């Protein structure tokens, strides 16, 4: 169905894909496996016409093709269900499903009846029990994901790419999805399935392709390979569990949360009575599915929702009031936001100016900013964290994801925080940079810092955390010590609600 030849895609500072060759067959589910940053999403964006500037060739149904945009790819018969939801929140389900492909009657007016009927039947196939006129913003995340899937089904595409389709849905919804995939397979459609959940892949996939560091490593039949072999191919080495201190003898409590609640206007509360402690020298991992409230929890601690939250926050056993970020910062809390580009960095500014931003006072001489001091400060952190940049005057957006993330970290280290809040600290950065990040985190806690790390990657949570908290729908559903944690019990706690 689809063959790629020597696909290469470069971004400033990183080669995301290098000579990728793969084959996707009709009537088969092909799993694309690789760690975050291996290049899966980039590859899918090329196949679906999002990125149009790449080297190499793509053959679709034996014909060479080159898409000039997503509409092109859709017309050719390739549909993608993106990992991030791409729905318009204030339109209804029907309007979203038919967006850009609206049915019209003989007069050129919208044929709402026909669209409603089609949407109803699509939702039925997917066993989603909601009215197609419902506004998408009112749906649960899992239901929104199903709408996204319905959109792809409507296209009746020959190749359907599913990028982490189950990251936000419940077990029963997964079962329905798998049924739909079976049907598609019998209709001789080709399906590309990307997931971190290996168990799922063994259940549904026929073939596998492993990507690592932007290269195709291996492909083959799913039933011919074992779980551990697959992981080893993904990672490129045997995974050695990190040297971790399993003992539970840390005593000094740095941060204590008491009954943190977060309300939402016109909606169910985002957070319900969250209470826990972070001790010095400890990495607390927080796991949960999309929409579980993890990011909101960190934001609340950091003072981003002062009007809607309640509860008490103690630092070093002293209660503090956090109404805005500076209160949290002065209390000794630092936040690495989930989306470093959107929230962490001023991308058009030089590296040194980003690093000095939260602590400009320190580079002042008699009220004026001193370039020498600022440069020295930046250089110190660039060296300490091993940030790879031609100079401290480089514009931040030209650096790779891993180095950008280190800059966000550097921003805070100068202020010597007591508690670091890390939201998806290794999202979209390559394996090496990831390992460096983990090492940095362990260095920091060994110096007496406390870290809360939110992550969607189970392996990351399991390798890095000393203690794991699992969240679902705004509550903490489990607290598991690292020694007792397994993929199974963590995932179960993340899904177990209602």
């Amino acid at each position, binding site marked *: 169905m689809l063959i790629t030849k020597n696909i290469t895609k470069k971004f400033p500072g990183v080669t995301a894909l290098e000579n990728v060759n793969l084959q996707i067959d009709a009537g088969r589910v092909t799993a694309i496996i690789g760690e975050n940053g291996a290049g899966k999403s980039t590859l899918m964006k090329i196949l679906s016409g999002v990125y149009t500037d790449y080297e190499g060739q793509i053959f679709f149904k034996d014909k060479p093709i080159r898409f000039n945009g997503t509409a092109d790819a859709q017309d050719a018969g390739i549909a993608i269900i993106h990992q991030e939801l791409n729905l318009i929140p204030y339109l209804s389900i029907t309007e979203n499903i038919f967006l850009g492909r609206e049915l019209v009657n003989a007069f050129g007016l919208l044929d709402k009846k026909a669209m409603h009927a089609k949407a109803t039947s699509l939702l039925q196939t997917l066993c989603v029990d909601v009215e197609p006129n419902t506004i998408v913003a009112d749906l649960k995340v899992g239901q929104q994901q199903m709408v996204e899937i319905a959109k792809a089904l409507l296209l009746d595409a020959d190749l359907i790419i599913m990028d982490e389709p189950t990251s936000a849905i419940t077990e029963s919804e997964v079962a329905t999805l798998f049924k739909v995939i079976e049907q598609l397979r019998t209709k001789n459609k080709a399906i590309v399935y990307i997931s971190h959940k290996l168990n799922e892949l063994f259940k549904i996939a026929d073939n596998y392709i492993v990507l690592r560091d932007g290269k195709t490593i291996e492909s083959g039949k799913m039933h011919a390979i074992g779980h551990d072999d697959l992981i080893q191919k993904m990672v490129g080495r045997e995974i050695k569990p990190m040297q971790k201190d399993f003992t539970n003898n840390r005593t000094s409590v740095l941060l204590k949360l008491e009954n943190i609640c977060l309300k939402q206007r016109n909606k169910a509360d985002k957070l319900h009575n969250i209470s826990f402690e972070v001790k010095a020298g400890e990495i607390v991992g927080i796991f949960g599915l999309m929409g579980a409230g993890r990011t909101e929890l960190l934001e609340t601690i950091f003072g*981003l929702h002062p009007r809607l939250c309640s509860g008490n926050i103690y630092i070093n056993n002293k209660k503090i009031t956090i109404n805005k970020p500076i209160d949290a910062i002065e209390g000794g809390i630092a936040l690495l936001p989930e989306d470093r580009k959107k929230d962490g*960095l001023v991308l058009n*500014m030089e590296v040194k100016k980003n690093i000095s931003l*939260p602590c*400009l*006072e320190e580079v002042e001489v008699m009220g004026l900013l001193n370039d020498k001091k600022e440069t020295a400060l930046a250089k110190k952190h660039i060296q300490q964290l091993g940030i790879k940049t031609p100079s401290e005057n480089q514009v931040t957006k030209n650096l790779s994801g891993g180095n950008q993330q280190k800059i966000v970290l550097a921003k805070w280290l100068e202020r010597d925080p007591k508690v670091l809040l890390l939201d998806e600290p290794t999202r979209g950065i390559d394996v090496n940079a990831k390992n460096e990040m983990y090492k940095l985190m362990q260095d920091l806690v060994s110096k007496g810092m406390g870290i809360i790390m939110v992550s969607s990657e189970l392996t990351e949570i399991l390798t890095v955390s000393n203690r794991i908290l699992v969240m679902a729908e705004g509550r903490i559903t489990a607290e598991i010590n690292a020694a007792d944690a397994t993929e199974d019990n963590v995932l179960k706690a993340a899904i177990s609600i209602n």
Partner: protein
Amino acid sequence: MKLAQYKNNFGKLQSLIALFILCIVFAVLSDKFFTVANGLNVMRQISVNICIAVGMTLVIITAGIDLSVGSVLALCGAVTAGLLKNGIALHSFNLFIGFTILGAILAGVIVGALLGFFNGLAITKFKVPPFVATLAMLTIARGLTMLYSNGFPISSFDASFTFIGGGWLLGLPVPVWIAALIVVAAIIVTKKIKLGRYIFAIGGNENAAKLSGININRVKIIVYTIAGALAAVGGIVVTARLDSAQPNAGTSYELDAIAAVVIGGTSLSGGRGSIWGTVLGALIIGVLNNGLVLLDVSPFWQQVVKGGVILLAVIIDKMNTKNE
């Protein structure tokens, strides 16, 4: 030279080249253009625009806009003029407060700063988009000007006041000194103090700035207050120059200021820009106005040409940044 700086300077270099070409063209076409007297004339003419445009630059770097400056200029000019002329008379208390020149000027600037402060307040605390908030202020300030002056000009002042608009100091017109002072101060603000850095950070990425602990609202309010105060300075200069505060003064001055800022390479989406660029932009507009007048081009065509130059400047700027 480092890439970023090089690119930055390249943008300014382009404006500089454009300015040179304009000067050469006008010098060839008109023998009145390339004279000291005309040069000083241009500088005096643009000094009010520079006062306003400097404030506008700061606002635009935060990704905001201030449409109210023209009206604020008129109101503050009228207030200063009125206080000089009539003071404040409270008839019911049989009280009369007279104002010295300095006092009247100070009062005018304070009114400007206050209006700017209200702009900032509306934009930050009440989340009114800058375009709408300052558009409202544009109308309000114009209305207040009419109320204050009853729609009549307030005219004839002491020579010591008109000196501000028409006098000379060390071989340069006084307004040029005022503009120069403002430019130097603004360069220090943008390059050398925290506030300036925060302005760029907010315009570049407001979320990141907020999460870095910067008090976004405070910075924005300060910036709009500065813009208001600088518009007031412009208003006082205009009033002194004409020896009269016209209730219609400053109409559409905000557009000239925005044009200078944009031609100078400051991005309307924020985070990028420079005071020097704005000065160059104001010079380009000034030279263009002056040259076209000297060449006796119809005022209607002058507007067309001016608009074309603005469009061209932004297109060139976009083409430069696209390749980054």
